[in-house]
């Protein structure tokens, strides 16, 4: 394949993923980062840079930039003689943009003494983004075991960047050197070598087989895997059953077929949520033991990180199930009634899954008092997220999943998506305000009373607004018109 063709494939993959407004977003992001980086340039204290990089890496590691195969690719790309590896590389290259700009905007303004260090920086930037994009791409297509390995490698880099930056390949973005160029280059090369080549080879001759559902190992009927669910007889029972019984699609070992399992979200996600909450608690208790010079600062950081990671995971996963909605079935009777029931069911599920976190923050407050301020924030999340995530997903053009359980189109980075992300960002920031005010009050004893009062007001406001939003979306007379807009939006987005 010649360079011109390759460039055209790459350019159109880029166009499939990003709108021109994304460039405006990038400009905005760079401007904001420039303002933030001025202090780092002046003080030459790069510790915050590493924390910031670590958090960015953590965000990317928990799902950012993953590859999505759409039905059009199965029909029109894999039926051409083009090598699927080329398509994979083009898609991965297009997906690097997110990591490239996040890492670039965070570090490009840091001072460097000479031209060579600029070259080393550029090389480190390319290799690091390639590492994150390649591992994210590979884990999107690989089996569950391999996916965990890829995710663990990215998580490890993120964690090391926060805890011990010198051991991270991202260190070269702040202190460029030939060693870190080689280090990040090796990481990228390993990620490339770990690409799921067998699966890509399989796509050349068996794309439908790769994405088709199949029975569990040892045989069995694919249709039986999903299994009968006791649906009905009342509308609430039907909605509740279909909300609680999610469907997992995963690749398990073999190159062919996706294993489909019906899972009860409480059986899978509740223990997971409780386990991660327990890990956070143990980590918090261990901080003074492992010799942190400033245990209070470490507690603040670990607690805040745990909360933002929780928010990130919940906000990024809450809108996914919208893709499985079938308007022509669900809305055959009355849209508003259906969505009221659906949102109520989702809110109950969110509340149960978040309960361990509300409890653990109360428990953590025994050793670190500001943690208690996060419990109301968790409650506000349970009340807000189920409806807000779907409304924002419809607004930003989340694609429907149809044939072969593949999306109809890629999710595009558009201005709407950016605005949606900004709203999420503001919401997340706002939920963290009471905790931050309380943490500051511990250091500034003189200002403690007004700060704690402000924290109480912020918490109460969050809860009151969240409850009002929940009422608006489920029981109020205006719910019908909001869900009417929502249905129209989904129809415009191609939902059927």
């Amino acid at each position: 394949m010649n360079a011109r063709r390759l460039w055209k494939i790459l350019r159109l993959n880029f166009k499939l993923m990003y709108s021109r407004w994304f460039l405006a977003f990038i400009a905005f992001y760079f401007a904001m980062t420039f303002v933030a980086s001025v202090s780092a340039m002046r003080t030459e204290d790069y510790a915050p840079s590493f924390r910031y990089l670590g958090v960015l890496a953590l965000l990317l590691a928990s799902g950012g930039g993953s590859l999505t195969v759409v039905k059009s690719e199965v029909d029109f790309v894999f039926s051409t003689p083009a090598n699927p590896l080329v398509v994979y590389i083009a898609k991965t290259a297009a997906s690097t943009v997110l990591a490239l700009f996040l890492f670039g905007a965070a570090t490009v303004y840091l001072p460097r003494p000479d031209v060579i260090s600029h070259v080393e920086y550029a090389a480190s930037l390319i290799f690091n983004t390639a590492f994150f994009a390649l591992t994210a791409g590979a884990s999107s297509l690989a089996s569950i075991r391999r996916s965990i390995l890829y995710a663990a490698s990215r998580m490890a880099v993120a964690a090391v960047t926060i805890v011990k930056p010198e051991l991270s390949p991202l260190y070269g973005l702040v202190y460029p050197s030939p060693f870190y160029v080689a280090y990040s280059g090796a990481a990228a090369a390993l990620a490339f070598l770990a690409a799921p080549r067998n699966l890509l080879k399989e796509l050349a001759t068996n794309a439908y087989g790769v994405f088709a559902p199949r029975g569990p190992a040892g045989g069995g009927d694919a249709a039986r895997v999903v299994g009968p669910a006791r649906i009905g007889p009342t509308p609430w029972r039907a909605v509740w059953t279909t909300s609680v019984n999610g469907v997992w699609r995963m690749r398990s070992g073999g190159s062919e077929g996706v294993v489909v399992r019906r899972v009860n979200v409480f059986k899978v996600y509740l223990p997971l949520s409780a386990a991660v909450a327990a890990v956070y608690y143990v980590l918090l208790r261990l901080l003074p033991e492992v010799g942190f010079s400033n245990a209070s600062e470490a507690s603040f950081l670990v607690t805040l990180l745990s909360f933002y990671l929780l928010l990130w995971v919940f906000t990024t996963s809450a809108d996914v199930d919208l893709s499985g909605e079938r308007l022509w079935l669900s809305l055959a009777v009355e849209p508003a009634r259906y969505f009221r029931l659906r949102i109520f069911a989702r809110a109950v599920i969110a509340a149960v899954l978040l309960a361990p976190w509300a409890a653990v923050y109360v428990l953590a407050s025994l050793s670190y008092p500001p943690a208690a301020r996060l419990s109301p924030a968790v409650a506000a999340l349970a009340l807000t997220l189920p409806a807000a995530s779907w409304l924002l997903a419809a607004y930003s053009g989340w694609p429907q999943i149809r044939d072969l359980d593949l999306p109809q189109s890629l999710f595009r980075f558009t201005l709407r998506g950016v605005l949606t992300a900004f709203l999420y960002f503001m919401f997340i920031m706002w939920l963290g305000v009471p905790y931050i005010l309380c943490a500051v009050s511990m250091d500034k004893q003189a200002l403690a009373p007004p700060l704690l009062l402000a924290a109480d007001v912020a918490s109460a406001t969050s809860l009151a607004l969240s409850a009002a939003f929940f009422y608006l979306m489920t029981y109020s007379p205006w719910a019908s018109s909001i869900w009417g807009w929502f249905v129209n939006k989904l129809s415009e987005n191609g939902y059927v």
Partner: protein
Amino acid sequence: MLSLVSSAYCEDCVRPPISMRGWFTEMPEGLCCHVFFSAYVLRCVVLVVGILGLCGCYVQCLYVSIILLYVYECIAAEGLRRRFGGVVALDGVSFEVSCGGAVALLGPNGAGKSTVLRILAGLLRPDAGVARLCGYDVQRQPREAKACMGYLPEDASPFLDLSVRENLEYVAALRGVDGSAVDRAIEALGLGDVEDRLASSLSRGMRQRLALALVIMHRPRVLLLDEPLNYLDIPAQEFVIRLLREMNAAGTTILVSTHIMSIAERLAREVLVISRGRIVWRGAVEELRAAARDAGERIEEVVARLMR
């Protein structure tokens, strides 16, 4: 449309060329593979017939002539089997379509029509059996097989976030055909007025036209079509039928899956009836018409009986 079919594949022909059963690996530069192939077959026929004729073996001469003319199938399925979990989708499907043929694959819902087409298109691996396109084993030589065919899936959805032209440019880049193929396809399918519009903004019928353009833009020797007239209004159906018939007349082999008999009658000369994963009948469309005439039935009723 005319420019696509009347040039008879004389330029920008798909590389690599027809395998010629492994006798040639490269086609002479500047020569269309169709012309080359026809000339080659003709030379073989003339040579063998000539030798047999000189030897006085006139009956053998006739047999060999017929065998040589039909020995090269553009589509061949040999004992295709495929299961999905516990469901047997294909249970030993075998058939072949000679080059230039037009065959309709008829069958009830769930008979295995789409599965056959997906296997032939190299998008699904059979549990057993071999699929060949233009003489290439689809599983062993996927690149060569895919270079010579175009596959239109049922409910085909082009890239919704690309314009009509960009969709064509993307597939052209993947197939390695030049930009003139894009212009020809736009002209052939009457997409000139919407070439800069996003596919997502097109009506379902226009998207189907775009999908057809994506499939025929590289002038495939073999067309695998799964319900090609879905979503098209009546004028568009007539337009597409005419286009496909002209392509067939110019040498393109067509295998079309449908459950609408009138489409099969107009697009194909032969019919394969598939039911429960097996080919249950094969014959000319004319045979079906005659059977219907004799029984005083509609042709659909005859086909329905065959499917049972």
